[in-house]
């Protein structure tokens, strides 16, 4: 099956129906294993046991940006290639991305209170991630406000691509400005600065959350395809009723004319 075949929503539904049970099982296994490794990880010499919060904070923070990246590629698909599933992919990803961003903010805040002495600080990293969260909410509101999916898709695609400018700001904010948030310790030049005792649980949790995203995204895309099918069938039904009413009205006029 080629990538072009996936452009057909019916084929996409067939393929994902087969894939989803496997993806869900892999996600569950990875999450359980990741949670086990997180529980068994030693305390950090500075952070103590709060290092365990990092095993959910960091994967969610990565995914908050990754999901917007996926939505940006899908937006290009909508505007440039007019791929029939591109705006379906973007719309389905937004609530999931918003949830990951919310979790990144919340868990970061819960880590910050004991380590920094504050839940929140208006530094560049935290503020740019908060802006990302608000952009997710704005995008979801836009999708809900415009009834015609194709019109909503174009507006949302433009907003998504403009919002993508925030991604490098989030990534490099810790280098460009003097922030309370620490600089990158995994994805950085010279390799990860973390000890394996923390790096392995972190990576397993990151892979587990990535599979969770993939599973939820494919399932949400299926739902969106079904929603559009419902909409088009309802419109067909409405057109059928309208033409029946018009022909009945025409017949009534003939009867009145004959009388």
């Amino acid at each position, binding site marked *: 099956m080629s990538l072009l075949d996936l452009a057909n929503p019916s084929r996409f539904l067939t393929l994902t129906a087969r894939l989803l049970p496997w993806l869900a099982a892999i996600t569950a296994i990875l999450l359980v294993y990741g949670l086990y490794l997180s529980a068994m990880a030693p305390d950090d010499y500075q952070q103590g046991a*709060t290092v365990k919060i990092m095993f959910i904070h960091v994967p969610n923070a990565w995914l908050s940006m990754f999901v917007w990246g996926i939505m940006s590629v899908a937006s290009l698909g909508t505007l440039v290639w007019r791929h029939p599933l591109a705006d379906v992919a973007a719309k389905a990803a937004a609530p*999931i991305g918003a949830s990951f961003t919310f979790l990144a903010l919340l868990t970061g805040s819960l880590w910050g209170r004991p380590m920094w002495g504050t839940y929140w600080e208006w530094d560049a990293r935290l503020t740019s991630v908060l802006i990302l969260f608000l952009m997710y909410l704005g995008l979801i509101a836009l999708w809900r406000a415009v009834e015609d999916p194709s019109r909503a898709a174009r507006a949302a695609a433009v907003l998504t691509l403009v919002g993508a400018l925030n991604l490098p700001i989030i990534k490099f904010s810790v280098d460009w400005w003097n922030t309370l948030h620490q600089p990158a310790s995994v994805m950085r030049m010279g390799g990860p600065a973390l000890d394996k005792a923390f790096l392995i649980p972190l990576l397993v949790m990151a892979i587990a959350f990535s599979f969770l995203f993939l599973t939820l995204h494919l399932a949400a895309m299926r739902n969106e395809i*079904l*929603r559009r099918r419902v909409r088009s069938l309802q419109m067909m039904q409405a057109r059928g009723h309208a033409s029946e009413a018009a022909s009945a009205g025409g017949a009534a006029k003939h009867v009145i004319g004959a009388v």
Partner: protein
Amino acid sequence: MSIGLDLGPYTSFIATAYLAAALVVVVLIGWVAIDYRQQKARLRLLEQSGVTRRSGRAAADIR
């Protein structure tokens, strides 16, 4: 709160973070599952009212 691990003085922060993550994941799974059932039910209703797809396949046929 004890979860069988010695989390020291920060137990409440760690437990809250993990519980919040679990809650959000459960809500996401529930949202996807409920939405799927709703769309399938709508398609079945349309099928029962005699509306068919242009391909001639049943409305609720999602193969």
